[in-house]
């Protein structure tokens, strides 16, 4: 697994507005510069927050990336939960889901 490469791509993207524009136009081409597995490449090309979360992308990097993608906050939380339901527990890092996927805010429960 090349989690380091996945995170390096996102770290670089999060910091560079020029790169973000290129990513909007052709993400696949940017990914050529990184040593990624097929699943990692697909997750990044599709903005698959759930799979990236399960792969172990650091939450701060992933949160900034989700904001770049324009994903609304509660939707972002749902996508991570859906990732765990679909792919199993988080595989690396310190941002694992500790509960059963329940919401911890009244605002989310009432939406």
């Amino acid at each position: 697994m090349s989690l380091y490469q996945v995170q390096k791509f996102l770290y670089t993207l999060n910091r560079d507005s020029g790169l973000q524009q290129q990513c909007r136009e052709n993400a696949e081409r940017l990914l050529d510069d990184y040593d990624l597995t097929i699943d990692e490449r697909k997750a990044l090309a599709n903005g698959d927050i759930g799979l990236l979360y399960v792969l172990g992308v650091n939450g701060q990097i992933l949160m900034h990336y989700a904001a770049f993608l324009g994903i609304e906050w509660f939707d972002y939380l749902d996508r991570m939960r859906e990732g765990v339901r679909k792919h199993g527990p988080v595989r690396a890092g310190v941002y694992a889901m500790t509960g059963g996927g329940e919401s911890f805010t009244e605002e989310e429960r009432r939406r």
Partner: protein
Amino acid sequence: MTLVYAGVCSHAPGITGRADLVQNKALRDEFYAALDEERRQIEAVQPAAIVVIAAEHFANFFMDNMPAYCIGTGEKHQGPIEDPDWLGIERREVPGAPELALILVKEIMQTVDVAYAEEWRFDHGIMVPLHFLTPRYDLPVIPVNINCQGPPLTPLHRAWAFGEALRRACDALPERIALVGTGGISHWPATPDSGRINEAWDRAFLDRLLCQDQQALLSYDDVTTYREAGQGGFEIRTYIAAAAAARSPGTLKFYTAELPIFAVGCTVARFDLAH
């Protein structure tokens, strides 16, 4: 004695970015008012610069070269790195204090191997506190990062030693310096558990912090902290460094675990430097 203000506060991005989603707006505004009182306190002591000890979140450093401690020596900084609409803070330049920062670096190096960086991009860890504490962004900022994200992390006793070195360096300056440590206490940010808060853990930590109980503060370990306070709990390093720099007890000005939409126990505290 040129350290003229020392405090700690939360920095979670939801504090500004999800302000409109909060149901309990009265409590939110009480929190904002507590931060605004710290703004008045800082303005009253007329500092030449503010040192912000933050837990950087991969805005500047990555695992290809991750310093345990770093100080920003640039003439100006940019932030936020995040989408401004998402964070609720406009992108802007913030003045630095390169001459003062370099003096701090040199003095701290006498006892702690601190890195320095002339380029620094602010993320929510610094922009959210500045939004409330220096809302005109006219006070020069010296950013300090303690790696709380990419393990292995600096031991807590080193964070304390860093705070002591920072205080010694501030005292060597004729200029008046304000210092703020920012971070969460217990929290599980950027996970599906966002909003989970261990209030009892937070209050016990704050009690120890604000009575300068060094032995108790340094007795925390990352395994237990991760289990009881989440990965966000690793950010206690910034508070511990601030306490070591303050060398004095403090007062909790505001705390609530009842704004979980902000994904943190909202905290404002000030050390009593005249103690």
